């Protein structure tokens, strides 16, 4: 992707968000809700793609980061008693989202550190463990509502916020892949030993990937909390993490547009197939297996690099 294209993404995202949010009141509440979920899922999938796709560190704890962002921002806005529409409301909400992202990325740092010593399977199960530990801790904190959940969060998220965040993230990611950092991520992913041997600080890149990915997952959590106005720990279990992983895998790990497309598709599809809603998770599961068996680079990916990374045969081992 060229650099000027990424600015285009940002502008397009923001413009679309601004235009559609002008018609917000005339949209049917159902379509409006689906649209918001699409935006939130794009943020989640793109942020996980930084960790899983670009840096190749398979993480199963994304819902944990999302929970941290959701709870942090909810605590900030409710304790300040923000109502919304005025300028202080907007500023406080932005601040709350960023704080949520920062707390999430702090934990991303914590998760990133053990990831320096772990690979593949072990890393996957450790991140899953981290996500579960976060959930269990929240469940035991009374001031966060424990298992009862956290109520009375002001409804501040709207189209502009959600798609603004998605646009900014898309812009960040698009620039990131072409930067030194992006090249570093891809080098670590493709061959860690070779990357280390030519002097790339693999530790640094892995941690940066975790911190960045967690930050945006935290933002997504904040947006989600301020849209549905009620959160409880069970919404952020590892099934949520799996859902995000499915979006990334279906779109193609390390693919940019593919992941956005699959986030949109996998949000609309279950809604369109309401009648057979109970088959949703079974279909996700089958989709994962079939894609891995027949098209491991993902449905929408065309990148050669990704293809080689997933289809290579281990030569020496």
């Amino acid at each position, binding site marked *: 992707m060229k650099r000027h294209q990424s600015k285009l993404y940002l502008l397009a995202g923001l413009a679309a968000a601004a235009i559609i949010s002008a018609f917000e009141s005339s949209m049917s509440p159902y379509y409006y809700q689906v649209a918001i979920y699409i935006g939130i899922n794009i943020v989640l999938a793109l942020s996980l793609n930084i960790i899983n796709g670009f840096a*190749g560190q*398979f993480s*199963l704890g994304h819902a944990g980061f999302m929970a941290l962002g959701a709870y942090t921002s909810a605590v900030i806005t409710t304790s300040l008693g923000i109502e919304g529409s005025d300028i202080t409301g907007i500023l406080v909400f932005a601040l709350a989202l960023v704080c949520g992202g920062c707390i999430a990325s702090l934990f991303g740092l914590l998760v990133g550190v*053990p990831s320096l*010593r*772990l690979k*593949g*399977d*072990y890393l*996957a*199960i*450790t991140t*899953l*463990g*981290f996500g*579960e*530990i976060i959930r*269990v*801790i929240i*469940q*035991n904190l009374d001031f966060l509502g424990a298992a009862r959940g956290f109520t009375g969060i002001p409804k501040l998220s709207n189209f502009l916020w959600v798609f603004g965040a998605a646009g900014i993230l898309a812009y960040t990611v698009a620039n990131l892949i072409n930067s030194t950092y992006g090249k570093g991520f891809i080098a670590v992913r493709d061959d860690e*030993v070779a990357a280390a041997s030519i002097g790339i600080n693999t530790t640094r890149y892995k941690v940066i990937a975790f911190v960045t990915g967690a930050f945006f997952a935290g933002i997504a959590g904040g947006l989600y909390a301020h849209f549905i106005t009620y959160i409880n720990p069970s919404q952020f279990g590892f099934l949520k993490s*799996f859902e995000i*992983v499915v979006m990334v*895998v279906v779109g193609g790990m390390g693919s940019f547009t593919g992941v956005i497309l699959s986030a949109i598709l996998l949000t609309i599809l279950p809604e369109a197939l309401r009648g057979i809603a*109970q*088959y949703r*998770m*079974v279909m*996700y*599961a*089958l*989709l*994962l*297996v079939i894609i*891995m*068996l027949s098209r*491991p680079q993902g449905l929408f990916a065309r990148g050669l690099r990704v293809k080689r*990374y*997933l*289809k*290579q*045969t*281990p030569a*020496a*081992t």
Partner: protein
Amino acid sequence: MSEFLQQVVNGISLGSVYALIALGYTMIYGILRFINFAHGDVFMIGAFVGYYTAPVISRALGGSVVLTGIVVLIIAMTVCSLLGVTIEKAAYRPLRSRPKLTVLITAIGVSLFLEFGGQLIFGPDPKLFPSLIPSGAVVNSQNLIINVNSIVVIVTALLLMLLLRVIVYNTKIGTAMRAVSYDHRAASLMGINIDTVISFTFVLGSSLAAAAALLYGSVYPSINPLMGIFPGLKAFIAAVLGGIGNLVGAALGGLIIGLTETFVTGYLSPTYRDAISFAILILILLFKPTGLLGHHEAEKV
């Protein structure tokens, strides 16, 4: 003191269930070098086989509890072995030469498929597991109650582990298994059929999981299609704790996890039960990634 003893007995009986599941993880890891995420769900299927067959068998055998238990155990072990072998043939075998990440994602997919397929077929609501072990207490003093349940669980688990040890160390196929886990290519050059050995490993692992499921169901009689997730993850942690690929390590790890969990539930808070095993996992991976009894494996470049 008696409360402490009570916790120890409960911990050992839970731990021996974890140990049986952990043995399956560790054997499959030893041979194929990947985590079979679907193992916990094979365990769940085992419990449901018990749930559906026990009443039928009990009627056919005229209500003898012990005999019913044994027959149901054999049926569950057979069904789960078939399931394990099918999963390996359909999902894992075509990916054998692919990178680990592909196999890992496939294993997660298979696991989710069994969980939610189970929800569709068995229904998502919890069901009451039939009692396969005669009820009653062996010791019944003031504060200490040791049920027949716990004793049967511990003894059955021990017997199965001994049987496994005999199979792995004293039979021809066991020797082949150890050879394959040591070096795939060299083993196949010696005329060992790798595919047969891998299938056999899945048979052993899955049948142990089925046995574990029946024992687990007798201690915690509420079963549902998602019941395999946490015992599966904890058994995996037990396998890592003991040193993955190591049979004695898996049994030891299972006991440690079972005891820790029971003590945390008894003395701290039941809500931390699920988090404590993950904390153990993270600590062990940070400070001794090879596990208690594992050995270091150098990375080939």
